[in-house]
């Protein structure tokens, strides 16, 4: 069979990391080929070289058995390669049609022919079953729709080879199914698809062949029909993987947090949280699952004082704390591990020991009057560093110079060491490797066992199902149902994430 892509002995070095170490990747024409590996295994780096965004240090790339050397994405596009990035590359204030044609516009003389562009987009979306309104603005479209625009963009440029980088990370299970049927239709039309993922069930469902990577190297090339999830996982992680977190059952007693009919608007003044009520008890992890953008962020912001709720009440340890400031909430025993550690969790230009007191920088034992007590702060940080095994063990290093995993450890360590009564945790393991993920999971369970109430928001279904004692699913600002994660199926969670109420599911 004809080979669509051959990447031979690719080497790519970044400062301090060998991202691709003599990698070989062969993709046959008309197949769906998955590239799997953990975060940091070098998948995205490899794909960026195939798409011309990066140049390999050494090695050879052939497209349709012809040697190529890309100076930029434009060259790759010309050879029939299209890429759908993990973070969408869309211009929010432009329309679908404008986004699709950007860079290869339809023109009449010097005039940009918008009508022609809309017609072409319409044709493409019909012929591949990718329904989308060409005149809609990107910022008004849901995520699944935006992804379609990305796919149409590549098809418009005549892509024969489509690279999809973690395309399902932002989708509901149902949207994922729709994406898969689109991919199958593309395959029937003779397109070649490279599917990047670390979700093994999906990989098994969609691929023909699978290339597994670990730490910059290829550890296996498998035929879907001759392998299973366990084998892929072993090649990916380098050891047997326990898929569930071991934890003793929760010993729930007193209510720590009670939320009553909470309404929250976002910065555009749209209702994002619409009348949510729930309770979290001492020593319990309460999980909130859902697709990104269904109000979880606004809920977390309202509970942690970053955003004022419109209506409803928040009661922390029996005291009404609705609309209180971050500082007041922290003083009453709230701690918060934010979803975006670079934006919220750390002041990257501050040294580690300054970051360790953020939020408690004005209280004992870190101050003497209005002055910082640098000696005490540094002693405290040293203890925390050894307790949480932060590396490198240099408390004066700037926040920005730590690796992602160690930055997250800084945040987690700081918030846990504040001896909170309630810990609000959002996406605690996003972008972390397996080691760091395991460490943080264990730390959360340990904290739970000391009697802290934990609110866990995560888009990772596996994580939230294995960590939570109770689990709620949010859709469009409301809770679709509150369940015991041991007593529901992934399918049921998926349907709830897509807007079905739990009562309705179980009624049948």
């Amino acid at each position, binding site marked *: 069979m004809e080979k669509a892509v051959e990447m031979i002995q690719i080497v790519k070095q970044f400062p301090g990391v060998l991202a691709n170490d003599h990698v070989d990747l062969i993709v046959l024409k008309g197949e769906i080929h998955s590239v799997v590996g953990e975060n940091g295994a070098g998948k995205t780096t490899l794909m960026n070289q195939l798409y011309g965004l990066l140049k390999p240090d050494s090695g050879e790339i052939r497209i349709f058995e012809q040697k190529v050397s890309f100076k930029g994405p434009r060259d790759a596009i010309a050879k029939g390669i299209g890429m759908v990035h993990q973070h969408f590359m869309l211009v929010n204030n432009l329309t679908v049609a404008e986004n699709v044609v950007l860079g290869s516009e339809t023109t009449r003389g010097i005039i940009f022919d918008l009508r022609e562009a809309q017609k072409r987009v319409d044709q493409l979306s019909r012929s591949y079953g990718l329904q989308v309104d060409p005149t809609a603005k990107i910022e008004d479209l849901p995520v699944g729709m935006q992804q379609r625009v990305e796919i149409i963009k590549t098809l418009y440029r005549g892509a024969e080879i489509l690279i999809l980088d973690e395309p399902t990370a932002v989708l509901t299970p149902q949207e994922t199914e729709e994406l898969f049927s689109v991919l199958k239709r593309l395959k029937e039309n003779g397109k070649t698809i490279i599917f990047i993922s670390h979700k093994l069930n999906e990989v098994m469902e969609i691929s023909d062949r699978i290339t597994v990577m670990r730490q910059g190297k290829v550890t296996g090339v498998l035929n879907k029909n001759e392998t299973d999830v366990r084998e892929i996982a072993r090649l990916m992680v380098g050891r047997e993987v326990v898929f569930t977190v071991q934890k003793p059952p929760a010993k729930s007693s007193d209510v720590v947090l009670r939320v009553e009919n909470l309404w929250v608007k976002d910065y555009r003044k749209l209702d994002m949280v619409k009348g949510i009520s729930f309770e979290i008890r001492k020593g319990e992890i309460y999980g909130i699952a859902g697709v990104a953008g269904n109000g979880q962020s606004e809920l977390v912001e309202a509970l942690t004082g970053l955003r004022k709720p419109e209506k409803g009440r928040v009661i922390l340890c029996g005291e009404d704390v609705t609309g209180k400031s971050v500082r007041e909430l*922290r003083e009453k025993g709230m701690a918060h591990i934010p979803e975006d550690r670079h934006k*919220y969790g*750390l*002041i*990257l230009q501050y040294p580690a020991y*300054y970051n360790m007191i953020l939020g408690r920088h004005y209280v004992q034992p870190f101050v003497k009057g209005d002055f*910082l007590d640098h000696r005490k702060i540094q002693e405290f940080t040293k203890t925390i560093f050894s307790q949480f095994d932060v590396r490198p063990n240099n408390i004066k290093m700037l926040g920005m110079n730590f690796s992602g995993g160690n930055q997250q450890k800084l945040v987690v360590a700081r918030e846990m060491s504040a001896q909170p009564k309630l810990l609000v945790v959002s996406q605690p393991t996003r972008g972390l490797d397996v080691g760091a993920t395991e460490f943080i999971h264990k730390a959360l369970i340990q904290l739970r066992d000391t009697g802290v109430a934990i609110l866990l928001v995560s888009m990772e279904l596996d994580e939230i199902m294995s960590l939570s004692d109770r689990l709620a699913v949010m859709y469009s600002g409301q809770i679709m149902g509150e369940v015991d994660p041991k007593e529901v199926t992934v399918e049921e969670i998926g349907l709830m994430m897509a807007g079905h109420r739990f009562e309705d599911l179980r009624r049948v």
Partner: protein
Amino acid sequence: MNNRLWAFLVPIISVIMALLISSVVILLIGQDPIVAYAALFKGAFGSKLAIASVIIKTTPLILTGLAVGFGFRAGLFNIGAEGQMVMGAMIATAFAINVAWMPAVLAIPLTMVVGMAAGAGYAAIAGVLKAKTGAHEVVTTIMLNWIAEYLSSYVVTVPMGVGFGTPKSPEIANSAKLPPLMTVQATELTSGIIVAVIAAVVIYIVLEKTTKGYELKGTGFNPYAAEYGGIKISQNIVLAMAISGALSGLAGTLEVMGVHHRFLGTLSGGKGFDGISIALIGQNNPIGIIFAALLMGSLRTGSNEMQFVGVPKHIILIVQAIIIFLVAADRIVRTILIRKKRVKAS
């Protein structure tokens, strides 16, 4: 090379490059740059009087430099030191004219407090606008500069004006005048310089040692993380603007108390804008700012001497512009330095 060394090298190289480029400009109008720079040097350090006037010029520059630098540290670009200086001087004068009955130990500190409060209040307008509406402080402080300029030129002619010629206010009370450190050929060397240096030390301590400094710098680096850490962003924006404005206000007040002994319409004369260059050359470090102000004070003083050899003193503005430009795009300087090193290595 580490950051500390860069912080030191970039401004120095920028100053040298600016002087070199400006010498080309001087050549272009048919003058000899060596003669010009020699005159500049002589004008700044050639006599006791010259040195005294460098120190007099440096005093307000330390304070406006601190004002801008402090703003930068808190993430604000206070381009309005000019207007705050005028407001501080004007209101301090109005106060100091009427305190003849007060002993100097009261009148001197009170006049300073009044001037600082006026500068702080004026700057806080921009702070409040930024905190409440998001209006960028560069645009609002520029508007406030113009408003201050027109307001003061009205005040100094009508309600406060005396005599003929240059619009000016009456002299302030003797008890509010700063005692001179010494007198050099009838020029009083103001003791304001001591106040300015103390201000720099205080600002250094506030920024590096206190919880407020922690909050202000944190807000400047990353307002989102600061808010997450329970720091009230809008409060800190207003406070940072007010402190910055207080420093500018003090700059104007010391000019009145120690140099002119009255309010003049032309008092600020670009010293607020010089503050920007000074803060950038001093890398926003209060101690660095003292030296940068000294440099700028020498350039300003010496440039009068340059006029005599036929080089308009506007050349100093050009030098300043080039310095700021190079500090803004500091990668230019870094690239040049790295290339040089590579050439040497090979």
